[in-house]
C-alpha cells in the first residue's frame, strides 16, 4: 500500500510540476498576473508530494519491505537502521528521487526568498525549474520507479553495497546533489533573463547568492567524496581522475568561473552574455555528470546499474534542456551587449583571465574524460585516460590562475597602475618566493613541484593578509567588514590551505608494503609499528578480522591502530577497513592486505604516511564557510527586509 501511495504522490507531483512550468511561463510572456501567481503554490505543492513519495520510500526501507524491488536490491534486514535510511539514495532509482526532492527544496527556497523580485522574473525562474522537474519526475515514473514490486518478494534483501556502508556516504551524496541541483537555480535565472531580455546588473545580483550557495554545497560534496574514498577504499588515494569524479569536478570548475564572472556582471555590468553562458554550461555539466554515471557510456568504479534505456532518456532530456537553452542563448544573447569599459590591468581583466583558465581546465578535463568514448565511437580502439594526462594538462592551466588569484582581489575596478600594485605586493612576492624556494630544503627531498605549490600557497595566503591589513586599521573593524569581504578572503585562504595540503601529500607521502608476522616491526616516518596479530569479530551484517598494530615513537608507545577486513554476510564481498590516525600535520594509515599463511599469523600490511593531508579538507571547509558568508551578505538581505516591511504595510493602506 505505502509504495503505491509513493507512486501516486509522484504522479501528482509530476502534474503539479507541469502546471508550475506551463502556466507561469506563459503568464510571464503574456503579462497575465493570475497565471504567474500559480508559480509559488505549485512549487510548494510539488515539494509536498515529492516529500510524501520520498517518505514512502524511506518507510519501505525501514520496514524491510522486500516486495519493493529497490529495497530488495539495496537493503538487508540486519543492515543498521541509518544505513537502511541512506540506502534510499544508494541506488539509481532512489538517488533520482532524492535529486528531484532536492530540486523541489531549492524551488521552494526560491519561492520563499524572492519576494523582492519582479513577479515576472520569479514566475519564469520557477517555471524553468518546473520544466527541469518534469524531466526528472517523468524519468522516475517511466524508466526508474523506486516503487516497483515483485510478488512474492524474496525472504531477504541482497544488502547495500558495502562500499556505501560508511558514514561519509551518509552526507556526501546529499551535499553533492545540493550543489548539482543548486546550479539549476542559476540556470533558471539565466534562462529567465534570456526570455525576458532583461540581462542587467539586477539579474546578476539576484542570481549571485544562489550560485554561490550551490558552489559551496558542491565544494563540500566533492571534498566529502574525496574524504570518503581516502578512508574507505583502503589504499590511501583521495583523487583518481575517475570519470565520475570528473563529473563532479567539471561543474565545480565551471561554477567557480560563474561566481567570479557574476561578480563582474553585478558590480560593473560587464561580461553579461559570457556569464549567462557560464550559468547554462555549469548546470549542463551537472546534467552531463548524471548522464555519464547512469548511462554506462564510460566505465568507472562508481557507476550505477547500467541501462541503455535510461541513458537514452537522460540524453533526450539533456538535448531539450541544454540544446534548448543554448539555442535560446544563440538567439537572444546578442541583443544584450554593452558593459562598463576597463583596461587590461584591472580587476575585470584579472577575473576574465580567471574565467578563461577555468573554462580551459573544464575543456581539458572534459576531453580526457570523454576521450575513451570518442575513440571507441570512431572505432579506433579501446583505451583509458589516466592521471598522467590530467596532471600534465591540469597543473599548467591552473598555475597561472592561482597566481592571479593573489593579484585580482587587491586590484581596483576599471584600471589600476602596475607600479602601484607592485609596490603593494612586493613583500608578499618576495616572501612567497623565498618560502617556495627554501621551505622544501627542510623537507624530505627538494622537489620542483613542492617549490611551486608551497610558493603559490604562501603567495595566496599573504595577499589575503594584505587585503585585511589595508582594509582594517584596528581590530574592532574586523567585525564590521561586509560578509562578502570575509567570504571571498576565507575561501581564497581555504584554497591556499588546501593547495599546501595537496602539495605536501603528493610530494612527501610514503607508502610501504610489508609482510608482517606476529611481533614484526616496521619503520615509517620515525614511527615504529608493531604487528600484534589478528582476531575475529562480528558486526551486525558482516564477519571481520581485525589486526592490532601498536605505534611507538622514540621507544614510547603512542597509539594503537586496528586495520580490519570485513566479509559481508549477504553479498560475500570483502571490504578493507583502513585504520587512520589523523592529526593536523600528518596521518598514519594502515590497511590489512591478504593473509600469507593458513594459520593467519602472517599478513600483507600496507602502511602509509600522509603529511598534511587533512589540510585539503580543512581548506575545503574554509571555502564552504566563505561561500555561505558571501551568499548571505547584507546587500542580498537588505532588499528582502525592505520589501517585507512594504508588504506588511500594504494591507493597512488598502484598508484606509
Amino acid at each position, binding site marked *: 500500500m505505502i509504495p503505491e501511495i509513493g507512486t501516486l504522490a509522484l504522479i501528482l507531483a509530476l502534474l503539479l510540476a507541469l502546471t508550475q512550468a506551463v502556466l507561469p511561463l506563459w503568464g510571464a510572456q503574456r503579462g497575465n498576473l493570475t497565471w504567474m501567481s500559480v508559480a509559488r503554490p505549485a512549487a510548494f505543492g510539488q515539494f509536498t508530494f515529492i516529500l510524501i513519495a520520498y517518505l514512502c520510500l524511506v518507510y519501505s526501507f525501514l520496514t524491510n519491505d522486500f516486495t519493493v524491488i529497490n529495497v530488495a536490491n539495496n537493503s538487508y534486514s540486519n543492515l543498521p537502521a541509518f544505513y537502511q535510511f541512506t540506502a534510499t539514495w544508494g541506488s539509481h532509482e532512489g538517488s533520482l528521487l532524492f535529486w528531484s526532492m532536492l530540486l523541489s527544496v531549492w524551488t521552494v527556497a526560491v519561492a520563499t526568498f524572492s519576494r523582492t523580485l519582479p513577479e515576472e522574473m520569479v514566475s519564469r525562474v520557477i517555471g524553468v525549474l518546473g520544466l527541469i522537474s518534469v524531466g526528472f519526475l517523468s524519468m522516475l515514473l517511466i524508466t526508474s520507479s523506486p516503487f516497483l514490486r515483485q510478488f512474492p518478494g524474496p525472504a531477504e534483501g541482497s544488502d547495500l553495497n558495502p562500499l556505501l556502508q560508511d558514514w561519509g556516504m551518509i552526507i556526501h551524496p546529499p551535499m553533492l546533489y545540493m550543489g548539482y541541483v543548486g546550479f539549476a537555480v542559476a540556470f533558471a535565472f539565466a534562462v529567465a533573463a534570456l526570455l525576458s531580455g532583461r540581462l542587467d546588473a539586477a539579474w546578476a545580483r539576484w542570481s549571485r547568492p544562489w550560485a554561490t550557495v550551490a558552489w559551496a554545497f558542491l565544494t563540500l560534496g566533492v571534498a566529502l567524496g574525496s574524504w570518503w574514498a581516502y578512508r574507505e577504499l583502503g589504499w590511501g588515494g583521495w583523487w583518481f581522475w575517475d570519470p565520475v569524479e570528473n563529473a563532479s569536478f567539471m561543474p565545480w570548475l565551471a561554477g567557480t568561473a560563474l561566481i567570479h564572472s557574476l561578480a563582474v556582471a553585478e558590480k560593473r555590468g560587464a561580461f553579461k552574455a559570457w556569464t549567462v553562458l557560464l550559468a547554462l554550461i555549469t548546470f549542463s555539466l551537472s546534467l552531463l555528470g548524471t548522464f555519464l554515471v547512469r548511462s554506462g557510456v*564510460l566505465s568507472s568504479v562508481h557507476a550505477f546499474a547500467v541501462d541503455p534505456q535510461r541513458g537514452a532518456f537522460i*540524453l533526450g532530456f539533456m538535448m531539450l534542456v541544454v540544446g534548448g537553452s543554448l539555442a535560446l542563448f544563440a538567439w537572444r544573447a546578442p541583443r544584450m551587449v554593452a558593459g562598463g569599459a576597463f583596461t587590461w590591468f584591472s580587476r575585470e581583466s584579472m577575473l576574465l583571465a580567471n574565467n578563461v583558465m577555468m573554462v580551459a581546465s573544464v575543456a581539458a578535463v572534459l576531453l580526457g574524460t570523454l576521450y575513451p568514448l570518442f575513440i571507441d565511437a570512431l572505432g579506433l580502439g579501446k583505451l583509458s585516460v589516466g592521471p598522467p594526462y590530467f596532471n600534465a594538462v591540469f597543473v599548467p592551466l591552473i598555475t597561472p590562475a592561482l597566481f592571479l588569484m593573489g593579484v585580482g582581489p587587491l586590484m581596483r575596478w576599471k584600471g589600476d597602475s602596475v607600479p602601484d600594485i607592485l609596490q603593494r605586493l612586493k613583500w608578499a612576492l618576495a616572501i612567497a618566493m623565498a618560502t617556495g624556494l627554501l621551505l622544501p630544503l627542510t623537507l624530505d627531498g627538494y622537489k620542483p613541484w613542492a617549490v611551486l605549490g608551497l610558493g603559490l600557497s604562501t603567495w595566496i595566503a599573504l595577499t589575503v593578509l594584505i587585503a585585511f591589513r589595508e582594509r582594517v586599521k584596528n581590530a574592532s573593524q574586523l567585525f564590521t567588514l561586509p560578509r562578502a569581504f570575509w567570504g571571498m578572503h576565507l575561501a581564497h585562504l581555504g584554497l591556499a590551505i588546501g593547495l599546501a595540503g595537496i602539495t605536501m601529500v603528493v610530494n612527501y607521502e610514503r607508502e610501504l608494503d610489508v609482510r608482517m608476522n606476529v611481533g614484526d616491526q616496521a619503520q615509517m616516518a620515525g614511527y615504529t609499528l608493531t604487528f600484534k596479530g589478528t582476531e575475529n569479530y562480528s558486526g551486525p551484517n558482516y564477519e571481520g578480522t581485525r589486526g592490532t598494530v601498536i605505534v611507538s615513537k622514540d621507544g614510547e608507545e603512542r597509539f594503537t591502530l586496528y586495520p580490519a577486513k570485513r566479509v559481508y554476510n549477504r553479498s*560475500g564481498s570483502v571490504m578493507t577497513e583502513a585504520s587512520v590516525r589523523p592529526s593536523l600535520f600528518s596521518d598514519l594509515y594502515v590497511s590489512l592486505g591478504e593473509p600469507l599463511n593458513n594459520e593467519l599469523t602472517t599478513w600483507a600490511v600496507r602502511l602509509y604516511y600522509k603529511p598534511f593531508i587533512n589540510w585539503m579538507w580543512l581548506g575545503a571547509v574554509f571555502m564552504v564557510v566563505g561561500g555561505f558568508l558571501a551568499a548571505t551578505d547584507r546587500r542580498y538581505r537588505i532588499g528582502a527586509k525592505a520589501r517585507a516591511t512594504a508588504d506588511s504595510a500594504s494591507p493597512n493602506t488598502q484598508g484606509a
Partner: protein
Amino acid sequence: MKRWLPLVFFFVLVGFFAKGLFLNPREVPSAFIGKAAPVFTLPVVGQADKAFSTTDMKGQVWLLNVWAPWCVSCKVEHQLLMALADSQKAPPIVGLNWKDKSRDAERLLIQTGNPYVAVPDDLSGRVGIDWGVTGTPETYLIDQSGTVRLKHVGPIDVDIWRNKFVPKIKELGA
C-alpha cells in the same frame, strides 16, 4: 555566428553520446584472440598423481573456465556450467582453479557437482598471468588448433551463452 558555437559543440557531443549508448566500455578485447593459447601443465585437484596439460585437448574445441571457490559470481555461473555439462552438446569445460589458497575446490565440487572434465590447480596464479586473467570468472573458447577464439569476462548467463558462445562454436564446426 559565434554565439551558435556552444550549441554546435553540444550537438557534436550528443552524437558521440548516442553512439556511446550502444557500446560497452567494459568489453575489452583480449590480446590473445586469434593467437595460440598459452601452454601449461598443472596438477589436477583431487588427483595428486595426475596432471593436466593443454596438449591433452589438442584436436577438439574446448572451454577454459577460470574460477575459484572463494568467488561468489562463479557460484552463480556454476548452475549454467552444470547444465551445459549435462546437455552433452557443449564443448568440454576445463576449470582452472585459480589462486585457491583455501584448498576448498575439491570439497566444493563434491558438494555442488562438477561440470569440468579436468580441474587444473593454479595455486600461484602463474598460468592465470600467462592467459591474461584479470579476475574470476573468465571463460575462453579454444579451437581444434589450440587458438583462442573468444574471451568472456564475468559470469556467463543463458543470453551470453546463446548469443556469444553458441554462434562461435557452430562456426568452428563442433
